[in-house]
C-alpha cells in the first residue's frame, strides 16, 4: 500500500507534529525507579524512558533523548498510555499494538492516537521508528 504525499502530510500535521512539538513529560528524571534506553543503532535514535513504578503499576513516567518526529511522537503517546496502568496491562497493550503494527491488516481497534501510529506503518521505512519505544519497553518488562 502506497501512501500519498498528501496523506502523509495530513497525518504529520494532525498528529505527529503536535506530539513532536509538545511531547508528553519530555524531561530527564534520572531518579526514577527504572530507566531504560530505547535505542536504534541503525539510525542513532535514542530515548531514555524514566519510569516510576509503584505496586507493579506505572505511576509517573517521563522520557528524554533524541530521535525523529515519528519515534518521538510514538514514545510520547506510549508514555501517555501506560501511566496509571499495571505492568501486566502494559505488556498486553505493547503486544497488541505491535501485533497490529506488524501484520498486514489491523485486526484490533485502538483509540485515535494509536490508530494514527498504526496507519503510519504504510509510510515505508519508518515502522522501526514507531516500534522503537514499544519494543524496548516490552523487552524490559518481559525480563521480569
Amino acid at each position, binding site marked *: 500500500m502506497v501512501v500519498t504525499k498528501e496523506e502523509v502530510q495530513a497525518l504529520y500535521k494532525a498528529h505527529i507534529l503536535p506530539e513532536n512539538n509538545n511531547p508528553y513529560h519530555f524531561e530527564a528524571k534520572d531518579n526514577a525507579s527504572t530507566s531504560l534506553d530505547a535505542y536504534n543503532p541503525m539510525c542513532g535514535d535514542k530515548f531514555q524512558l524514566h519510569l516510576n513504578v509503584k505496586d507493579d503499576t506505572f505511576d509517573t513516567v517521563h522520557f528524554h533523548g533524541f530521535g525523529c518526529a515519528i519515534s518521538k511522537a510514538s514514545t510520547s503517546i506510549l508514555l501517555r498510555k501506560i501511566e496509571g496502568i499495571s505492568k501486566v496491562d502494559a505488556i498486553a497493550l505493547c503486544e497488541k499494538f505491535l501485533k497490529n503494527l506488524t501484520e498486514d491488516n489491523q485486526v484490533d481497534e485502538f483509540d485515535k492516537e494509536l490508530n494514527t501510529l498504526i496507519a503510519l506503518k504504510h509510510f*515505508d*521505512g519508518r515502522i522501526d521508528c514507531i516500534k522503537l519505544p514499544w519494543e524496548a519497553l516490552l523487552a524490559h518488562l518481559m525480563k521480569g
Partner: protein
Amino acid sequence: MLKNTKTYFPIFKKYPDLVYLDSAATTQRPKLVIDAINQFNSFENANIHRGVYDLSNSATKNFELAREKVAKYLGSTNPKTIAFTSGTTNSINIVASSFLRPRLNKDDNVVITLLDHHANFIPWQMLAKEKEAEFRVVPIDKNGNLDLTVLEKSLDQKTKFLSLNHISNSLGTTTDIGEIIALAHKKNIPVMIDAAQSIAYYDLDIHQLDYDFLAFSGHKMFGPFGIGVLYVAEKWMKNITPYNYGGGIIKDVTIEDTTFSDFPFNIEAGTPNISGVMGLSSAIDFIHKFDKKEMIQHISDLVNYCTDQLISIDKVKIIGNPENRSGIISFVVDGIHPHDVASFLNQDNIAVRAGMHCTQPLLAAMNTSATVRVSFSIYNERKEVDQLKNSLVELIKFWS
C-alpha cells in the same frame, strides 16, 4: 522421473548437447533465478538498512523476507537464526572462530570425519593446532561408509564439537545425520552440519534433525555465487561474536570501545550481497516447484543406472561403495589419469570434474590421488549416462 526439467535452464537451450555432470561443483541456474537477479540489478538496486527512500525500503524488506524464507526452508520460525554469509566455507569458519575458539581448551578435542571437504576440515584442524587440542578424524570403512559405533567411540567427555557433512562431495556417501546428532547430543556435544551437497534436494527440517549449526551455499542449490547461509540454533545465538568488523553490526562506536548487535546482524558486517540474497530467495522458490522426494528419486535413478553402466566397463573402477549414495560417483580408469579422462570426455561435450575434489585426506585413505567425478541434478537424463559410457569405452579403446 522428472520430465523436461532442462527447459528451466537457459544454458541447455544454448547448448542442447551439453552433458553437464558437475552439479556437485555448482548447479546450473534456472531462468527464474537469473531473472530475479537481473530484475534487482536493473530496477530495484539500492543499499539496505539505513535508507528511508522507496528503493532502499523495498530492498530492506525483501532482504529480511528472504531471511524468513530461508528460515522456513529449514523449518525454523525464527528468521534471526539465519545469517547471510559468502558461502559454506565462510559459514564454517565463522563457527570455528567465533563459537568454538573461546570454548576449546588444551587437551579438548574436536571431531570431524574423513569424508569431510577441506572447508569442513582445515578450519577445525587449524583451530585445534592453535589451542593444542586434539583434532580427531573419524575413519571410514573401505566402502566409504561411516561406522556409527566408531564415530560414537570418538566422542568423549573432552569432545567440544562435532562437525560433519551430510553428503560427501567426493564419494557420494549420505550419512545418517539425524542419528549422529542424537548420539552427540546425548553427550552434550554441539553439532555442525555441512549441508552444501544436500540442501537443494533433502529435507533438513530442524525439528527432526536438531542440528546446532548448519552451513550451505547458494550456488549449489540453483542460486548465485557469493552467497551462503549460516544457521545457528537459538540457544547458541548469544555465543556468536562478530567475524568481520565493520558497518551495520554495531550498537555504539566510540574511540574507546564498540558494542555489537546480536546474531545474525553481528555477522553481516559491511554491505551484504543483496542481489545474491535475492537470487537465493528465488532459488528456494524454484526448489518449491518440485517435490523433494521426486527430486531424490530422479537423481537416485540416474546414479543407480550410472553405477551399473560404469561397472560394466572393463578398466573402470568406482571409488567407494556407500550404502546410501546420493547423486555423486567418483571413479578411475585403469592407466588413464583422471585429467586425461575429463579432457577427452569434454571433447564429447561431457562436463565432469577431475582431481581431489578438496578431499585430499579422504582420497589418500582410498589409495588414490585423484578421481573422475560425475554428479547429477534434476536436469540430467538417462541418455546422458549412455553418452558417458560410450565416450569412456571409446577413450579406453583409443588409449590402449
